[in-house]
């Protein structure tokens, strides 16, 4: 589950350790839940399937473009726009141009990685439905939350609270706000 698509009706369970959360994910996945998301103060690798990130390819392309642009600017300035006789060196000085080209590559790639992350991870939004949960603050300190979207268990009655309760979380909250 994508953490930006929290819908009303999502259950949030709070755990006191990463191990509990990890096993909770394992158990629920075993039950067939796929729309799961974790919230934790440290990165976890609980095995929730996710889309392959496009960030590396974006960064790669941005780097290529940055390098090409840097080289092009230098070539335009020193070779095409106003070539000058400088120290008897050729106007098109490939080795000299490579340094700024490298720097331009790294700069654009880095900017792409940074901005790209903020875009894909929706880090520009100070508000999120989960923040409406009292006590969610500890998700960045020492508590581990699991979000379960019952949408993929559309049986009636909703089995999710029961499934969650069996994992004995500290508490379970039902999300009421649309993201």
């Amino acid at each position, binding site marked *: 589950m994508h953490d930006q698509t929290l819908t009303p009706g999502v259950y949030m369970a709070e755990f006191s350790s990463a191990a509990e959360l990890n096993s909770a994910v394992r158990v629920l996945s075993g039950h067939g839940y796929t729309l799961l998301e974790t919230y934790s103060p440290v990165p976890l690798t609980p095995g929730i399937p996710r889309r392959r990130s496009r960030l590396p390819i974006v960064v790669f392309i941005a780097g290529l473009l940055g390098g090409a642009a840097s080289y092009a600017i230098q070539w335009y300035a020193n070779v095409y726009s106003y070539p000058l006789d400088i120290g008897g060196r050729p106007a098109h000085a490939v080795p000299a141009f490579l340094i700024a080209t490298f720097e331009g590559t790294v700069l654009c790639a880095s900017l792409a990685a940074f901005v790209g992350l903020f875009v894909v991870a929706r880090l*520009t939004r*100070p508000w*999120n439905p989960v923040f*409406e949960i009292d006590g969610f603050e500890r998700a960045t300190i020492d508590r581990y939350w699991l979000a379960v979207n019952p949408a993929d268990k559309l049986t009636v009655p909703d089995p999710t609270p029961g499934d969650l309760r069996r994992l004995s979380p500290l508490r379970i909250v039902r999300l009421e706000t649309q993201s």
Partner: protein
Amino acid sequence: MGALFPRWTNTAARAMLIAAACTFAGIPVALMAWVRTPNATRQYKPVDQPIAFDHRIHVTGQKIDCTYCHFTVERSASAGIPPSTICVPCHDQRWMESSVLEPVARSIQTRQPIKWNRVHTLPDFVYFNHAIHVAKGVGCETCHGRVDQMASVYQSAPLTMSWCVSCHRDPAPSLRPTSAITTMGWTVPASRQQLGQKLMHDYRVRQMTNCTTCHR
């Protein structure tokens, strides 16, 4: 307790980030655009002079050649700002008593120069030489515009370095026969490029883009 930030801050935050990015990139772009405007280059602004000298009357009406008053243009770096006495041969005593010419009369009487306001200003590190441009077939009109149509003279060219350099790189399109140097509204022949090439050859015009051409 609820969330620290209300929901609308999501929109606000993104809007502010985009605005900041646009400002950051926009200011230099705007500045670079602005320095190219006539406002920044002081083009097309008629300059008031102590005497309401009207080039239209003298050039178009009386058909006086530019070099009659600006008579050092062919031998000096400076085209020459005419001395007060140059008015006298044409404007006789009666004219001199008119209020329009009063500053000229006063200048001649008191031996004090007339304080003209400069229209075409180059920085002091730029050494422009009128004589060589005239000798190589650059007409008055090419840089000064249609002075014959100006009530008060204004700067018609941007006088930026890139403007100078564009012609120094490719002089041919700006050349004319030396016989037409002072002609206003010179009719460009159909074979402009051909003529330019011919004049380049005849007047031994070179591309002069090295720095000491102008900066010494």
